[in-house]
Structure formats: structure tokens, C-alpha cells
């Protein structure tokens, strides 16, 4: 008997997300009110299949955020994520071969901060393995062709095709992998390969699965040594370059290729999406399944993004839905139908609700926290404290009282983290029973996969 009750979506805290699809459209979604569903606010670009967006990179910065977009026809556009104004275009016909698409793109945030004239630097990588680092002057006058100041190009792989390319948090190392290409790490200071993975040994039957990496992610922002990679043969592998060249840990997830990977902020759990629309989160330290994100998702997941501040994960894919999930309860917060096959999603973390006075976004955050955590008494003030450092004017009197009670030691961030971690630990307890069942299932799953994992 199928379930006949409808599951209502709770709605998500105020946020702003940008989605990119196969027709080259960029859609801006904003959730403004308390527990509202996000709505499409703006749509940039005209539908054109040759302008499908292959790769996206964004600088999250409050003063002047930038968004770089690589299109199918080889053009790379630099936009402002706030207004959608085109700031520069690079047509790659001159220096990149036309046959291969751009698969990796990264805008360097460091260079952006240093100078006021904003020569932005970007790393591109095509599917044939031609990587290049270029810096471009963004001058508002000349939109069509911006001059290339300096560029450095090198070849990442001799054969095969690159499918994933990531740059770590310190922006000194880049990671490449793909079909027939083992993951390799490059030092971006002197453009040299510093590490190359080794394929795992043949299995007990003597069968060797060909290398085909489809996605990768660094585990922590400050640590370039640990990263996870997903393969076409539905395996997730953890590599530690300081330990060995073979994966430290590898486990299977369902039966279709892993298509998207994202790391959590805490660096301990990852989010995995695969080709048939299953999404789950794993504890990467043990390789155990924490839980699946269930919500009628039927199309391949192409991109998963964790919000840098709120406990929200966004996923989008070929079923043309943008879905927002709660990271802790793994519940669907809301889903938006966006008509085209979505390829990427990006959160704009600099977004705050400004139009509505009296600090509308503050109570929202609290509410979302209330739903997540049972012990709101401890958790709420810690969040408030953090929020208060941003916009003090919005805090109402009652909240101020609470804050004064709770925050005795000022705004030490370390202290805050401690409190929050404590809350999380406490929160888990009431739901232990429900989780115990999950754990059992997880164990079962692990056993069945156990023969494959290392």
C-alpha cells in the first residue's frame, strides 16, 4: 500500500541561490520571508542550446562578488552575481581547442582581494586536459574583449578526458581526474604535478575496473591533503596524499555512477549524489552511511552545494528541480521546478534580507534552528551571538536580554564553536532510537559492500 499522505515542505530560511542550465539560462532564486519557498526572482540570458553552462565558479565576497561561467561554445563570461551584468568575455577560439568543452573553472579569490583594479585570475581546464591560468583586467568600458595579461597553460593528462577539476581552499593546489585519468594534484605556484593516485588493485576475481572519476571534493578548506573522489563504477574513495597513493578508504553507493560530491563544513561528512537521483550523506571517517535524502527525486543529480552558513544543502540535476535539504534531519525543505535540465547551483552567501525592517532574517534563523535542534535553549543564543556581530541594529530588546544572560565571555569564536558542538551532541540523544534502526541498516549495507572496500 503506497503512502497516501502528502509531505509538506517546511520552507527554508532566507537565502539566495543561482542555478545554471543546459540552455544557458541563469536563474536567481530567493527565499525572503520566514519559512517561505524560494521563488525565481530573475532570469539572465536568452535560451540557446549552444550556450549551455558547463562550469561555474564564484567568489563569495561581500564587497565585489564575481561569477565566472564557462559556456558550451567555449566562451567564458564573467558576471556580477548581484545584477547579472556582463563584465568580461573570453572567447577561447584562439588558444583553446574547440572540440573539447571546459569542464573545470575556478576564480581565484585571493588576487581579487589584494588589488583594487581587480585583475581577476582564473583557472580553466578543458576535457582534453589543457589547463591554463589566466588573469584578466576587468574594465567596465570594454565588455567584448578583455585583454589577457598573462597566461600560463599546461597539459594535465596525455590521454583520456578530464571530468572533474577542483581547487583547494588555500588556492595553491588543483585536483584533476577523469575518464582514464587517475586523480592528480598540481601545485599552482610552479605548475608541477606533486602527486598522482594509483589505481586500486584487481579484485578477488582478477577484474580490473577502468579508472573513471566523475567528481571530487577537498574535505577541508585548509587541508589540501585529504580529498574524496567519486567514480563511474559507483565507488567513493578517500585519498590522503600524505599516507599512500592508493585510496585510504573506498566504499560503494548504490548502482549508478556517482555524479556529484560535496563536503560538509565540519570536514567529517560528505554528500553524495548519483546518476539515478539518490542522494545520501556519509561519515567519511568511517565510510558509514549517515542517511539518505528521500524526496521523490527522479533524475540524475548534477550538483550538490552546501550553504556556507545555514544548515542547508542544495541539489539539482536532470529532473530540473532545485531541492533544498536540511543537513541534520535530511528533510526536504523545499523544491522548485525550473523547467530545464539544471547543471549547477551556487549559493550566494552574501545575501541578507534588507528590504524588510526589524531584522526579519534573525527570527527565521532561530526558527529553523528550533526545528532542527530540540535543545534550542543552548543553541539559539550561540547563533544569535554570531548574527549579532553582523547586524546589531536588528536585534530586539528581548533578544538582547537573552544574549546578555548567555554570553558572558563576549564573542570568542572558539567558545561559540564549542557550545554548538555541545548542542549537537545533546541533540542527538532524543533521536537515538530512530537512529539506532538506521545504524543497523547501515551496518548491513556495509557488510554487503565490505568485500569491495579496502
Amino acid at each position: 500500500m503506497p503512502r497516501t499522505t502528502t509531505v509538506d515542505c517546511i520552507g527554508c530560511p532566507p537565502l539566495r541561490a543561482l542555478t545554471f542550465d543546459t540552455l544557458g539560462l541563469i536563474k536567481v532564486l530567493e527565499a525572503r520571508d520566514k519559512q517561505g519557498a524560494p521563488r525565481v526572482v530573475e532570469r539572465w540570458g536568452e535560451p540557446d542550446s549552444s550556450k549551455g553552462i558547463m562550469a561555474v565558479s564564484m567568489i563569495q565576497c561581500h564587497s565585489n562578488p564575481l561569477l565566472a561561467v564557462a559556456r558550451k561554445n567555449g566562451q567564458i563570461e564573467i558576471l556580477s552575481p548581484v545584477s547579472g551584468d556582463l563584465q568580461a568575455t573570453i572567447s577561447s577560439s584562439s588558444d583553446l581547442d574547440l572540440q573539447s568543452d571546459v569542464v573545470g573553472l575556478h576564480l581565484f579569490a585571493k588576487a581579487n582581494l589584494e588589488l583594487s583594479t581587480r585583475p581577476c585570475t582564473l583557472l580553466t581546464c578543458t576535457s582534453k586536459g589543457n589547463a591554463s591560468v589566466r588573469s584578466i583586467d576587468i574594465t567596465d568600458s570594454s565588455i567584448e574583449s578583455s585583454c589577457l595579461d598573462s597566461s600560463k597553460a599546461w597539459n594535465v593528462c596525455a590521454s583520456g578526458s578530464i571530468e572533474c577539476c577542483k581547487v583547494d581552499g588555500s588556492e595553491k593546489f588543483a585536483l584533476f581526474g577523469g575518464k582514464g585519468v587517475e586523480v592528480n594534484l598540481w601545485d599552482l605556484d610552479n605548475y608541477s604535478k606533486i602527486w598522482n593516485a594509483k589505481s586500486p588493485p584487481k579484485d578477488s576475481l582478477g577484474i580490473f575496473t577502468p579508472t573513471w572519476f566523475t567528481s571530487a571534493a577537498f574535505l577541508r578548506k585548509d587541508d589540501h591533503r585529504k580529498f574524496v573522489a567519486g567514480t563511474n563504477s559507483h565507488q567513493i574513495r578517500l585519498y590522503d596524499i600524505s599516507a599512500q597513493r592508493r585510496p585510504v578508504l573506498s566504499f560503494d553507493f548504490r548502482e549508478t555512477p556517482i555524479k556529484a560530491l560535496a563536503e560538509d563544513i565540519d570536514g567529517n561528512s560528505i554528500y553524495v549524489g548519483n546518476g539515478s537521483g539518490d542522494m545520501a550523506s556519509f561519515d567519511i571517517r568511517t565510510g558509514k552511511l549517515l542517511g539518505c535524502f528521500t524526496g521523490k527525486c527522479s533524475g540524475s543529480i548534477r550538483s550538490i552545494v552546501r550553504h556556507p552558513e545555514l544548515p542547508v544543502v542544495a541539489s539539482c540535476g536532470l529532473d530540473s528541480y532545485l531541492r533544498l535539504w536540511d543537513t541534520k534531519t535530511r528533510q526536504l525543505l523545499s523544491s522548485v521546478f525550473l523547467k530545464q535540465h539544471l547543471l549547477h547551483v551556487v549559493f550566494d552567501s552574501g545575501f541578507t534580507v534588507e528590504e524588510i525592517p526589524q531584522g526579519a532574517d534573525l527570527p527565521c534563523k532561530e526558527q529553523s534552528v528550533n526545528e532542527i535542534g530540540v535543545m534550542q535553549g543552548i543553541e539559539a543564543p550561540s547563533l544569535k551571538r554570531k548574527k549579532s556581530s553582523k547586524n546589531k541594529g536588528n536585534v530586539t530588546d528581548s533578544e538582547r536580554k537573552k544574549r546578555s544572560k548567555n554570553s558572558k565571555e563576549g564573542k570568542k569564536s572558539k567558545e561559540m564553536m564549542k557550545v554548538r558542538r555541545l548542542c549537537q551532541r545533546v541533540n542527538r540523544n532524543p533521536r537515538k532510537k530512530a537512529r539506532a534502526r538506521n545504524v543497523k541498516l547501515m551496518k548491513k549495507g556495509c557488510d554487503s559492500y565490505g568485500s569491495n572496500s579496502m
Partner: protein
Amino acid sequence: MGAKRKKRSKGSDSDEDDERDSPPPKKQGASASSDSNSIKQKSKKKEILPSMIKNKEKRSEIHAKLKRQKKLEKRNKLKERQAAEKRALELGEEPPEKKVPRTIENTREFDETVCMPDDEELFAGNDADEFSKILSQQQTPKILITTCRFNSSRGPAFISELLSVIPNAHYFKRGTYDLKKIVEYAKKKDFTSMVVVHTNRREPDALLIIGLPDGPTAHFKLSKLVLRKDIKNHGNPTSHKPELVFNNFTTRLGHRVARLIQSLFPQEPEFKGRRVVTFHNQRDFIFFRHHRYIFETKEIKKTDTKGKKDEKGTNEKVPDHKTIARLQECGPRFTLKLISLQHGTFDSKGGEYEWVHKPEMDTSRRRFFL
């Protein structure tokens, strides 16, 4: 059972909650046949559902009674309605509106993916998809039909009929080739689509439609196959290019599937052939029918307008000719149900799905995807 009853009688009869919850009091009453109990029963009868009664005879008796009651009510309602209609007709008023029955289709759950005709993004998306070349007649479709490895009895018969339905279709023996190899071959030979008929136990049970060179792959379950020779009074189709009818493909996914199927056929129908191929979607099942039609002029008999005769009796001198379309079914008859729609060509291992049916999606019988 017996022990339970004993317990209750021992404990206390005043336990009202206990009595209300459990059906056995009926039986107890019957055995005791005390007046007070029977009165209680009567007052309770309306609340108790027949399914709650454990005595089969009683249950069936009550059930029959209820059924009869319902039937009577229904008949009375119909009589009332007819009377009201007649009265309205006599008085020359507008007859009361006919009620539209509630069906699963028209109480369908709200679906945001249903396409609106004024959606410009939909048309932009359609123009950009893989089939737009064929559907805008820039390219003539060329179809490769093949089977699974083992193929006999109804399979070949079905394929020969498919060949007669789809113009410019070519059958290739499967042999022992991999499907991926055949896809490669078809790409090289400029085929635009590929159809694979899968047979199980000598009965076709699945259909795979692959758009080439990079179009999607749709996997259908095939059921209720009736071949031409099993259809009574069937016609034989000519080799004219058929007209196409697509019904009820409403959602984004439905449009995509419809366009995929549409791209199997050439887009210039020869109306001289009077051949129609219909794909009718109802509750996510796609019904395939193949007809020949003919227009005929027919005299209308006067007797069929009984009610209006006495009013309009004088002014009926108009020639009573009416053109009607007669249909003759020819070619196979089958039903398809979408199982998955895959991005790219056939790849069972590393394939990416645009849509897969998952059991968790069946939350309601009023939820449809096409």
C-alpha cells in the same frame, strides 16, 4: 477468544469502552437473546460496519441490506434527476446542468511540471532538444529495429508489423552483438533512432527507443500486445506515411517522451493514405493504435430524436446528410508504460537518468508523470 469473553463477563459489564470497541457483544446478545441487548444492538447498528461483524451470516445479511439500500437511493436520485429534466423541458426552461463524474484523471494531483501553452521557455527548450531537427523536417528519420538475443514466435511477427507501421524502418538481426556496438554502427550509418524489442518467454515485453546520435533512451514496459491477425475485421495498411495523434502528454516529461516517439515517424503525413497512428496517454499508460479511416455521408434517421419530435416536427425538411468518420483498425495494438528515461544513448552501467520510476514516487493514485 472464549477466554477473552469470559474474562470480560467476569470483570464488569459496565466497562463501556470495552464493549464499544469489540464486536463480539453481538454474538453475546444473540445467544442471550435478552431484550435489553437487542435494543442496544439496534441503536448501534448504524455505527457498526459490516466488516466489523465476525459472524459471517450476520455480516452478509447486513451487507446485503446496506447494498440494497444504496441501490434504492441511487435509483431514486436518478428518477428525481430525470423528473427535474422533464419538468424543465415542459416549462421551456434550461435543463439542469449535467454533472461531470469525478474520475481519477480529472481529480489529478496538482503538478507544477504540467506545461502551459504560453510557456516560452518550453518552446525554447523544445527547439534546442535532440529531436528538433527531425520534427522541423530538416532530417528524414531512419529507424533501425532490432531485438534481444533470443527472439521467436510473436517477436518477429510484432517486428514485421512495426516495419509496416513505421516508414523507413530497417530490421537488423541482433546476432550476438552488444547493444552498444549496434548503437555505434547505427550512428555511423546515419540512423536517427533505434528500436529494440525485448522478448521474454517468446512474448514481447519491453521496448527500448534510443534517439541517435546522442538523444535519450526510453525504456518502456510493453503489454497487452494484440497482433493484426488477432484483431477482428482488421484492415491492411498502405505504405503511405501516417498521420500522428498524441493525446494527453501534458508534463515536461510527457512532452519529451512524446517528441521522442514522434521523431520515429516522418513529419509529412500523406492524407491520401488515410492512415492514423495514435499514441494516447491515460494515467501514464501509452496506448498505441493504428487505424484507417474513411469519411462517409449518412442519412440521419428521424427516430433518434424522440423528445424533440413534437416541438420541431414541422420544420424538418432539411436534407439529413451527415459526414461521419468510420474507423478500421489495422496493425498491432499495444500498451506502453515508461520505466525510465536515460540521458544519452543506451548505457546500463554508467548511465545517467533523466527520470526513473521509483516506488517512493507512488504516493497517490492520482499522481501522474506524463
